[in-house]
């Protein structure tokens, strides 16, 4: 199915206008859809963050939840220290920057030394370590009970919605521009064959770290927004593996390494989860689990490839945990 | 004794993704003869063997083994029909011992009861393997590994043995022994399809040869005729090793 550029552009525009207007015409507090869209926008960002590192650059990270949690904690700590305020852009930027900084520090040894699947496992360990560190962080991190922040500033759902929308749009724009630049080509070259890319003069480590840090940055932003939303952070909650796994599921379901895949995947999966939660709350996780299994069986290359009919051969390259570099 | 060639390849085309590797190739392999597929690197020889053994699938064309079509069969099914393919690079189980490699060669239910016998025959034919029975296959020398790969393929008592560049990377003396063994195997009744770049040595033992270039059949003929053919000599100048 080939869609003309003009048609897809108009569709995007219409959707954007819809998203902008919707919360203004409904009662944002009572509207379930406003909450749902807010959540989905966040997931789109998380999914694309992973997509940049894994789908486009081929470095499968299982530690995104580390950056999410770090983002949440930075926001809470800086607010309590009086440096930033409620829904403060500075707070969010600091969270993003902190997460990116962490990614660079951790990324240099991990990305320099570990190929593919070892890297994935290393990132997995990272998230877990950070969770334990925060639990044992004493008064700074509030220990196992976490940190609370002043919730009296809460007025409306709308700011969250629009901030999430803004972050999502900017992330998508950033991704779009990057993947169409030479930088994007370099990233994909690294994914296809890192040795060949290096032999062609691409500074692979630099680019891998860039992708990793950029993904961490947007994930940190989401963590920050999450902190502003829930007002009380528990280490188990903000470092929950779900924050790593769900975006991955969404991206793979939608089509890793594509632009629209993660967006589609985010909406579809979030929709499925929420619908299941509404219609059959007791059975919801079961339904979700069954859904994942069914989609995997019948659309193993993701929804995008199903739609476009184009087999996503890059999935072969993403073999996480393929510890043996085996050539068939 | 059935008449007709053992293996017939008709108008076979093979693609790797979007790239075509074999263009409309036809040839056949006669029973109990040694047939050679010659050509430079990338000529499509390995691809043809892969298509026969089921590792690759032809997009068009027929492959008939004793009258049965091999197209779209999985490799394990092709092996069960009596074709043993020793792939390029041998692909031994390097972490398993020599003995274990051989035993796995006789995995098929039809050959497993004969394993003891087959082992004796294999070790007699390749005495060097007997000494190294308990060693890990990966620790063998290049020549020994090639012997093991062929011995392993023989454990399945194949009707047709396909060898992909067995002489690659081996010292001339080892190659000499190798080709002697191939000749002996053929005398014992095994039909052989031999893919090689070592043209001279191959045509010394082959009965018939096909020459491939960039995926297409260039010429064919009896071994002796090819050797004395002027075009052939010209094409393979420098490869008469």
């Amino acid at each position, binding site marked *: 199915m080939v869609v003309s550029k003009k048609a897809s552009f108009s569709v995007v525009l219409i959707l954007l206008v819809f998203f902008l207007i919707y919360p203004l015409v409904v009662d944002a507090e009572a509207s379930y859809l406003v909450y749902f869209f807010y959540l989905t926008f966040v997931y789109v960002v998380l999914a694309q963050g992973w997509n940049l590192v894994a789908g486009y650059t081929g470095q499968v990270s299982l530690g995104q939840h580390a950056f999410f949690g770090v983002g949440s904690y930075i926001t809470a700590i800086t607010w309590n220290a009086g440096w930033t305020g409620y829904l403060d852009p500075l707070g969010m930027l600091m969270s993003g920057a902190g997460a990116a900084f962490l990614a660079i520090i951790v990324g240099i040894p*991990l*990305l320099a*030394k*570990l*190929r593919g699947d*070892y890297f994935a*496992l*290393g990132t*997995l*360990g990272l998230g*877990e*370590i950070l969770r*334990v*560190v925060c639990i*044992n962080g004493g008064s700074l991190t509030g220990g*196992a009970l976490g940190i609370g922040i002043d919730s009296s500033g809460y007025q409306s759902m709308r700011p969250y919605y629009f901030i999430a929308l803004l972050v999502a749009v900017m992330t998508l724009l950033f991704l779009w521009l990057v993947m169409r630049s030479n930088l994007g080509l370099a990233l994909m070259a690294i994914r296809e064959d890192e040795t060949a890319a290096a032999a062609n003069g691409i500074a692979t480590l630099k680019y891998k770290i860039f992708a990793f840090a950029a993904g961490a940055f947007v994930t940190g932003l989401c963590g920050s927004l999450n902190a502003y939303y829930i007002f009380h952070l528990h280490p188990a909650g903000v470092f929950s*593996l779900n924050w790593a*796994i769900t975006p991955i*599921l969404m991206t*793979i379901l939608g089509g*890793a390494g594509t632009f629209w895949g993660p967006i589609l995947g985010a909406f579809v999966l979030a929709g499925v989860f929420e619908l299941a939660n509404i219609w059959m709350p007791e*059975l919801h*996780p*079961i339904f*979700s*689990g*069954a859904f*994942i*299994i069914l989609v*995997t*069986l019948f659309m193993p290359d993701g929804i995008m490839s199903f739609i476009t009919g184009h087999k996503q051969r890059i*999935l*072969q390259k*993403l*073999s*996480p*945990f*393929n*510890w*043996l570099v085996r050539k*068939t | 004794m059935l008449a007709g060639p053992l293996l017939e390849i008709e108008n076979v085309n093979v693609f790797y993704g979007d790239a075509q590797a074999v263009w409309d190739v036809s040839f056949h392999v006669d029973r109990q003869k040694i047939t050679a597929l010659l050509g430079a690197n990338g000529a499509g020889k390995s691809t043809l063997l892969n298509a026969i053994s*089921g*590792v690759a699938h032809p997009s068009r064309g027929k492959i008939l083994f004793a009258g049965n079509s091999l197209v779209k069969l*999985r*490799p*394990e099914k092709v*092996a*069960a029909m009596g074709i*043993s393919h020793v*792939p390029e690079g041998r*692909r031994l*189980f*390097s*972490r*398993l011992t020599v003995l*274990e490699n051989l*035993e*796995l060669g006789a*995995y*098929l239910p039809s050959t497993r009861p004969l394993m003891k016998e087959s082992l004796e025959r294999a070790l007699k034919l390749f005495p060097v393997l007997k000494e190294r029975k308990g060693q890990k296959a990966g620790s063998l020398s290049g020549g020994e590994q090639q012997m093991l790969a062929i011995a392993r393929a023989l454990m399945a008592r194949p009707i047709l043995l396909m060898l992909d560049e067995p002489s690659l990377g081996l010292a001339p003396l080892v190659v000499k022994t190798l080709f002697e063994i191939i000749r002996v195997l053929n005398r014992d009744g095994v039909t052989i399809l031999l893919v090689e770049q070592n043209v001279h040595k191959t045509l010394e033992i082959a009965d018939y040869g096909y020459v491939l270039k960039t995926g297409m059949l260039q010429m064919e003929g009896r071994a002796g005729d090819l050797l004395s053919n002027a075009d052939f000599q010209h094409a393979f100048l420098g490869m008469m090793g």
Partner: protein
Amino acid sequence: MTGFPSFAIFFQVFINGILLGCMYGVAAIGLSLIFGSMQIIFIAQGAVMILAAYCIYWMFTWTSIDPFFGFLVILPIFLAFGWVIYVGFFQRVAKAGKNPSLLLAFGLMVLLEHLMALAWTPNTRTVSTSYAALGLDVMGINISFTRLMVSFVTIIATGAVFLFLKKTMLGKAVRGVSEDTRAAALLGISPSRVSAATFAIGMALGGVGGVATSITYPFDPYFGFLFSLKALIAVAFGGLGSVEGALLGGIILGVLESLSSYTISAGWADAIAYAAFLLILIFRPEGLFGRSVEKA
């Protein structure tokens, strides 16, 4: 935690660590086998263990069958279960690369956990056998009878798998397929049959682990994920492709946790385990017993 712990206590902690490690080891072997054959981390291994634990629980509660006998029932059931799951699900996506298999494993885990929670409530269960509190006194060290039995069973299970891989044709085929699938196929070995068998064995090992879990810990439907993670770490320590390595990796992990837990705190024990995990990955990714693997 001041002063040097006395030797007896230290030894006690050490022994506890080994016993704990055996449990990790059993989960790790299954993981390692499945990985070698299908190239995915079967993240649902922990959930499978818990399923077995529930089976043991209900058998014990209704019929008072001792868990160690219940184990004889569990083994064939889980073997069959594994075969069915592989043929029904994983075989279909085997050619589509690793990601679908990974997703399937994840979906299976979610499904299992929540089905169990739905069927049997998320409440914690324990299997309290009459001998649960029994301890053996060996040279001043108290060894729990249950944990000792579990360790024996684990070692026997490891030995059985080891013998299977080394001595039987199917076992050799499993090793062959895990090294070079195509070469195996050319010899007439069906990779999908072998993978199904491997998966079935992996599940059976999960069953063994579940029996161990049921009598060692109070458990709930979501307890398994932690085991999956620990099994993963154990495999990383021991190295891939090595059954003995998986068990030893588990024991090392158990000892490490036990020591950290005693000398520092239980909370930090986890962090140390993960830190060690990272270090091993960076400095010796092939583990202590595995083959050399290509690094960056």
